[in-house]
């Protein structure tokens, strides 16, 4: 035992580790340092003690509700994205003539910026847009429906921009599951619905949790569409907007840093909960034996 540890202690330095140095440096310079700087800044308020910013956030009526405002947008958007992407990706799991075409069409929005999507939505969903004109042709259509400059506008935009991401991620998880498992289940009497419920869903659960986390973090930091398509003064006053106002309208970088820290913490809590639930599921390989 002793000889072994001393041999390990004398093991020569692995020089290939140096290859990780540029990436580490990059992370430190562009992520870890700014993060620590922001954390430190949030405890250095313009006036008051070191917790003054956090105290202010949780007492001011235009600050702490932004946590819920943002959650009310981000959670439904994430659930919708994952919920719709799952059945569509499931249908697309087998190669067919249309698979490539449909996948391409579904993924296109990922290449559009949020601003471009917002612009398109304003013309299409707006009060004078095509949708409103089309709906007017219906006999039971009563007043103008409002899908822009409110909660729904932001939600729709989050779904449009977030869906391709969730879809691609889930598609890659689904195609990783050996289709022979479902065939084996079918020979044992499992209908297609039972195959999905007993084979695909349990094997996908960890991937879905991961997808949910990534999609949620993306949605929770919503900013441009909340301004362009929402009602930034009220129902879509999201947390990133509050941070922006503190930083660039009140020039209170310290408060803005505190808000950013709180935003990160909320995301962390949700991610921790979801990943904690993931631990309840099977997480091994998704093939049925040696292949």
């Amino acid at each position, binding site marked *: 035992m002793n000889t072994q540890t001393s041999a390990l202690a004398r093991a020569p330095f692995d020089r290939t580790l140096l290859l990780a140095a540029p990436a580490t440096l990059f992370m430190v310079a562009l992520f870890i340092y700014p993060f620590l700087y922001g954390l430190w800044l949030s405890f250095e308020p313009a006036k008051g003690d070191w917790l003054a910013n956090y105290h202010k956030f949780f007492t001011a009526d235009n600050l702490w509700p932004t946590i819920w405002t943002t959650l009310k947008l981000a959670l439904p958007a994430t659930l919708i994205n994952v919920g719709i992407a799952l059945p569509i990706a499931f249908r697309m799991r087998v190669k067919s003539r249309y698979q490539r075409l449909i996948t391409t069409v579904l993924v296109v929005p990922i290449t559009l910026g949020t601003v471009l999507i917002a612009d398109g939505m304003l013309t299409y969903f707006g009060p004078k847009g095509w949708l409103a004109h089309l709906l007017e042709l219906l006999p039971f259509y009563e007043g103008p429906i409002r899908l822009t400059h409110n909660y729904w506008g932001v939600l729709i935009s989050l779904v449009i921009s977030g869906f391709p991401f969730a879809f691609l991620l889930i598609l890659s998880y689904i195609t990783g599951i050996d289709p022979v498992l479902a065939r084996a*289940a*079918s*020979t*044992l009497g499992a209908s297609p619905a039972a195959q999905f419920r007993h084979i695909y869903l349990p094997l996908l659960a960890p991937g879905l949790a991961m997808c949910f986390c990534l999609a949620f973090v993306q949605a929770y930091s919503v900013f441009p569409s909340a301004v362009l398509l929402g009602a930034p003064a009220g129902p879509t006053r999201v947390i990133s907007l509050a941070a922006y106002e503190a930083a660039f309208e009140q020039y209170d970088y310290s408060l803005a840093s505190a808000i950013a820290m709180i935003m990160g913490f909320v995301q962390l809590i949700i991610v921790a909960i979801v990943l904690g639930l993931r631990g309840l599921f099977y997480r091994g390989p998704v093939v049925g*034996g*040696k292949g």
Partner: protein
Amino acid sequence: MKQDFSELRLDRVTRRFAGVGGKAFNALDELTITIKRGEFIALLGPSGCGKSTALNCIAGLLPLSGGTIQLDDLRIDTLPPESRGFGMVFQNYALFPHMSVERNIGFGLRMRGVSAAETTMRVANALKLVQLTGQEHKLPGQLSGGQQQRVAIARAIVIEPPLVLMDEPLSNLDAKLRIETRAEIRRIHHELGRATIYVTHDQDEALSLADRIVVMKDGVVQQIDRPQQIYAQPANLHVARFMGYRNVIEMDVEGATGDCVELRDRGIRLSGVAMQAPPGARAMVAMRPEEIVVGEGPQGRNTLAVRVETVEYGGRDSLVGVVTATGARLFLRTAQSAAPGDALSIHVPAERALVYAPTPA
């Protein structure tokens, strides 16, 4: 879903696939066979011969392009796999990785709505049958290949299917385990008393397991017969080659009396048995290395003078490669010692020199 049956009838079962350049080809061409309760059928052939296609068609995993499948008076080729209720053992086992051994085996019973108490009892019996009692709470990933294979078999038979389908179930096991599991499969087949269809490319497996063997090539059935017949009387040259008739030489036909054919190639004369309709001017003669004997035949008949070219030592005997005076290469198995360059006399009994048409249909 039927639990028991008396016969499964496949009538001209055909499966077409789109091939290269959009040209369709028949992966399975008009397979017709009637399988009785209690029978063990082996589908035998080289890879790509359509044997797995046939199995998937019976299981319902592939739709037919033509023909019908009937289980007694019930037409089943239009039913989805979950309504056919056949147990299937897959080549790579296809165990559900997220379920324990117990839950894997009980899956089919749960899908059938069998009560929890009965499921537990039947799973325990199945575990005993495949000798895995005590492993029920492990995940498939924690088992060895042989154990996984037995879980797969238990999972397929616990539902007491009328028919068990096995797709090269032993090909992932090592040689020793393969022979042991082979005996297990035969024993389980007898205990269940239903029918088994077993796909393999290994002649030994097919010969030792099956009551009847279906030899296939390019989607077409070449011969359906008992193992003894397939081994000793291959219906055509394909089957003969596949069953180990390694020595095939083309010769002129000198004459035929009944089944007996006289052949000649320059200085060599052989007499053999016609396995196909009387051949024309040329014929192929097929012989097993095991059935060629060193020494002269009775009255010097069917005897060839050869020179030894290669010797492959194989323990009990050696595989000796020889060349005839006409340049034909032959292989024979002999326990006698031989060295390259030796001159030998060899002969083959006339009834073990099988004569086929030169271009088999």
